[in-house]
């Protein structure tokens, strides 16, 4: 460019070599940083598969952890109780958080709008969003364990997770409900439909795919949480279907395996982590697929 530049009539508008170099370097750095951001993901996925698949032997999914981790040749067991426990705890949490969350979002959009009270609710939902997950555990501990004098229980873990899910459900629902065209609402009302029927027949069905996406993301988030369960659902080995008693869960079992590691327990932790991440990834992919099909977003 520099040699033949003088001859071309537009050459005097050319970018000077110094600016060109700066541009190249800056874009190179941005690209490099982007690639660096992907390195941890690749490493985590690689190590999860590399170490986790080795642990997925015959009875990994069909036996409970035994707790005999001290001796090298004793049977440490698998993750059955943790998988079932996570499913039960998260299912109950979802059963609480989803209706309440959707209800609050509907109220915010359809009734509260931008009134003072609605903005106060939005502010408090934002506050909930920022609360560290372990503090949710402390809240439930104070109210349901100190307050009642009873012990850990699965449903208390569910309540802690429900608190954690609530702001996610409310926030994502609000975004989707906002996208429902107001023309649809007005048509329904103009045809004489009462407000509640407009909400249940027009607004919610239109927003459904988006709502499901938000709900699935919230479930995925709650399924991976350890801290709120440590002092609410507790730790146990046996499979239990009683949400009123101690209940094992995948994240808590991984945590316990990490803090008392022998090589085989460490391997079980990797296997458990692989199971947990697969579950959460599946939920995420499902959520993404649904949001792509939504006509709104």
């Amino acid at each position: 460019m520099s040699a033949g530049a003088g001859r071309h009539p537009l050459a005097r508008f050319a970018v000077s070599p110094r600016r060109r170099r700066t541009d190249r370097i800056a874009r190179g750095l941005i690209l490099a940083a982007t690639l660096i951001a992907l390195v941890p993901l690749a490493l985590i996925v690689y190590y999860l598969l590399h170490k986790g698949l080795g642990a997925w032997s015959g009875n990994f999914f069909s036996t409970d952890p035994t707790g005999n981790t001290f001796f090298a040749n004793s049977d440490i067991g698998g993750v059955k109780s943790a998988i079932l426990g996570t499913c039960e705890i998260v299912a109950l949490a979802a059963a609480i958080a989803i209706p309440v969350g959707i209800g609050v979002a509907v109220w915010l959009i359809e009734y509260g709008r931008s009134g003072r009270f609605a903005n106060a609710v939005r502010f408090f939902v934002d506050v909930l969003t920022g609360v560290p997950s372990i503090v949710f555990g402390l809240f439930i501990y104070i109210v349901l364990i100190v307050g009642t004098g009873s012990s850990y229980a699965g449903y208390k873990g569910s309540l802690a997770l429900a608190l954690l899910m609530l702001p996610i459900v409310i926030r994502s629902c609000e975004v989707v409900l906002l996208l429902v065209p107001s023309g649809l609402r007005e048509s329904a009302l103009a045809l004489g439909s009462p407000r509640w029927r407009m909400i249940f027949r027009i607004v919610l069905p239109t927003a459904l795919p988006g709502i499901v996406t938000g709900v699935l993301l919230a479930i995925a988030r709650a399924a991976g949480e350890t801290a709120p369960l440590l002092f609410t659902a507790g730790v146990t080995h046996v499979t239990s279907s009683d949400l009123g008693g101690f209940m094992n869960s995948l994240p808590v079992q991984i945590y316990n395996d990490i803090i008392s590691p022998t090589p085989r327990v460490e391997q079980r932790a990797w296997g458990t982590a692989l199971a947990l991440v697969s579950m959460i990834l599946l939920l995420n992919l499902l959520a993404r697929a649904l949001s792509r099909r939504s006509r709104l977003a």
Partner: protein
Amino acid sequence: VEGASVAGDGRDVLSRPSLARLPDRALKLALTLLSALILALIVYFFVRLVGEARPAFTHAGVFGFTFDNDWNVNADRFGALPLLLGTLITSALALLIGVPIALATALYTAELAPARARAPLTVLVELLAAVPSVVYGLWGIFFLAPKLRGTEQWIADRLSWVPFVGGGTVTIPNYFVAGLILAIMILPIVSAISREVIATVPADHKEAALGLGATRWEMIRTAVLPYCRAGIVGGAMLGLGRAIGETIAVTIVIGDAPQLGSHLFGQGYSLAAVIANEFGEAQGLHRSALFAAGLVLFILTLLVNGLARGLVRRASRGTAGGSALPTSGAGAMAAAAASA
């Protein structure tokens, strides 16, 4: 004429009979109560938390509890400064490492990447948010920390004249590894918010810069970055709030030394980690002190998040026109999910 539009019982013919209006009223009332319940619940939790934390605060004084550098469970001395500083050190490290990288990813996906690579790149970065905290801890303590130890020792030896960084012996769990793990964990949220904010830069501004002969980088520097500075700062602060409150991953990789670590590559403790680690066997005053640590943590995240939300809201409202800009639903939702 007016008489014709009034029915026998005195109501307007077009209005519903009062019985038919009942479900509407009921729904409105129920939903309003539900929303009020959320408010009440948070206030109730907060009051109870303060109540449980009070014995520790009266024991050491609010100021003493927060700023005394002495956490000794056996001697009943609870000064949370080492924990508070541990939280701040690791979070600051996370910002220092995480924010530039997150901003670069956002810039690359929003402005520089070939159109076909944008969506997959975005998904990949957001997948980092899907990895549970405990899995980061597992990976951090069994892979990252041992692998980094040699490099850390080399840095510590070379920089031995720098206070707090060099000189000491590197332990496997330490502040630096905790900060690094946190940097990875806040990457998706900072990147998602930055991308959202960058998307609000009007095409006019960018085209004007390019039309005046700016290179791509000059366009980013002169048109994009100044326009979304507040939003990016807000995104970084949301990341900070996330880092401050992160519990399990930090608990696993920071070690559990209840005094202020002497250097960056030594063991430490953080507010969240001390709760996760000690709460199980805590009794009496000790338990109250842990509740107090939770309260300090809660208030700290509240301040950081409040500031951050304000900045992001102002930024996404648009600094130029002042009008509300439509944001894409899926993106906003991903940001909401990532930020929660």
